[in-house]
């Protein structure tokens, strides 16, 4: 049976996040030919609608309201529910981002539905689809099926390939208007600590430093390398605790969980709590002076050596490579 699927798009600093395109690809896989409807919620989001179509959505619904400029659970729930009631989709997909993690269980509870969170892969298509998600901090995986009612899942960024962008596609964009009432939470202030530029949870390349980096200044070469590779800087808790960098960069069980294509661990020992956040990365490089360091157990490539000797050469080599790639 084909399914009509509603996909929540998510913008960051005025641009759609990659996970939104990945969510459309996931929706396509389970739709069995049904209609994929993109949903955009915000104060001014209509300009993003066509991009959802170019990545595979068939049509897009926007909900715009001044009170939806910032995410609040109540505001977004009301907007989502208005569209849900109009559309009665068979399936809903969101990103497993801060927003998705907050919103999805509230919506699932309102609807009395199941919810499969943090999906990293989908096996099979249409009604036979089974969802793979990490459990025990990525040390094991479970395969989950929907038993009854609405199929609702969130996908972990960076795991499901988006469809090729097709600039020639076009689709209908309509709007739904809502009254936003009774916001129980008011955001009084936002302090931005997360680094500008590439978002850690969506970065394709992460250059992460640990206590071995030794100082705040020691992170500068890591930043340079990350920038060269179009990636983001991450850190171990050891480095955060030592004040070399902000906690917003922490990767691990109590920090962010990331799955980039390339993770370069520099002066990180590879504690189990750190590995919980990065061990599912596609390629892992470890640079550590201790040949016995745990991190080498998950590394695809390792250099045993002093990072202060390695980093300048590594940056030069990458620059060399990049200069041949851009011509």
């Amino acid at each position, binding site marked *: 049976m084909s399914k009509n699927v509603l996909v929540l798009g998510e913008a960051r600093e005025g641009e759609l996040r990659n996970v939104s395109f990945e969510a459309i690809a996931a929706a396509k896989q389970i739709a069995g030919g049904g209609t994929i409807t993109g949903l955009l919620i915000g104060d001014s989001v209509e300009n993003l609608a066509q991009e959802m179509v170019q990545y595979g959505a068939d049509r897009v619904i926007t909900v715009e309201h001044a009170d939806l400029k910032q995410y609040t659970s109540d505001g977004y729930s009301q907007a989502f529910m208005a569209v849900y009631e109009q559309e009665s989709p068979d399936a809903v997909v969101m990103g497993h981002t801060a927003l998705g993690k907050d919103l999805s269980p509230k919506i699932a509870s309102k609807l009395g539905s199941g919810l499969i969170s943090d999906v990293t892969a989908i096996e099979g298509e249409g009604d036979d689809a089974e969802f793979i998600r990490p459990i025990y901090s990525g040390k094991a995986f479970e395969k989950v099926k929907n*038993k009854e009612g609405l199929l609702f899942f969130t996908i972990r960024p960076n795991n499901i390939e988006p469809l090729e962008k097709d600039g020639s596609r076009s689709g209908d964009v309509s709007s739904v208007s809502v009254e936003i009432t009774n916001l129980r939470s008011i955001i009084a202030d936002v302090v931005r600590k997360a680094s500008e530029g590439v978002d850690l949870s969506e970065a394709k390349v992460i250059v992460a430093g640990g206590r071995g980096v030794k100082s705040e200044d020691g992170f500068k070469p890591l930043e340079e390398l990350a920038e060269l590779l179009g990636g983001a800087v991450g850190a171990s808790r050891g480095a955060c605790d030592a004040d070399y960098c902000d906690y917003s960069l922490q990767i691990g069980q109590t920090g962010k969980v990331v799955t980039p294509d390339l993770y370069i661990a520099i002066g990180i020992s590879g504690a189990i709590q750190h590995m919980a956040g990065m061990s599912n990365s596609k390629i892992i490089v470890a640079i550590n002076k201790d040949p016995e360091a745990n991190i080498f157990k998950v590394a695809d490539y390792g250099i045993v*050596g002093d990072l202060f000797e390695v980093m300048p050469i590594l940056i030069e080599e990458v620059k060399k490579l990049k200069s041949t790639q851009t011509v």
Partner: protein
Amino acid sequence: MNIYALVKRTFDTEEKIVVKNGAIQEDGAEFIINPYDEYAVEEAIQVRDEHGGEVTVLSLGGEDAEKQLRTALAMGADKAVLINTEDDLDEMDEFSAAKIIAEYLKDKDADLIIAGNVAIDGGSGQVGPRVAELLGINCVTTITELKLDGTDATLVRDVEGDSETIKTALPLLVTAQQGLNEPRYPSLPGIMKAKKKPLEELELDDLDLDEDDVEPKTETVDIFMPPAKAAGRILEGDIADQVSELVGLLNKEAKVI
């Protein structure tokens, strides 16, 4: 103030995971309070000490969860409730878990409920927000700070590294993020006292729920280990040669740069 903390018994994070016949082997493993729920218990105790009232810790699970509840009592919680589903349920999902917990809480007039933001085993992060929704109370997730003034609450919420200051009011459910506090270790006198604190045990029947009401919406069909990684390559030679080889490999073999 009537305060509840939700406590899940989980595998110790340091434990090696063994999967056999599509199930996690639990024999001989160490179990702990889910680390985020330790923050929840600690915060509940601090709020009580500042504003008065009572802290109840609540766990859903089997008989074995009594140990984690005793630990929470030893930290300083006043009483504990164990909803034991061992005999009633073979299958559960987040929908079922939240439904049972909310059914217990619905007539308790809780002012503040604190949950962990995620359980390190199941990892869905659903139970807190689902319970709040079922109770019809406001929910703020991943908080790192909580201040109360009468029924007004000021919270700081971690949003992928950014901090949002949120103003809201009780009754409220919050979920704890790392940074909220430093959970205390139970003291020896605390452990002695905990033995005498009330621990109530309930079954589904006592909540007027039967199996059908909590029939899971999703089903786990398999559990498996991640594919074993081929042994990595430790490069050799001069550092300069190693680095240049590495960049070559990342570019040509791994194709990631």
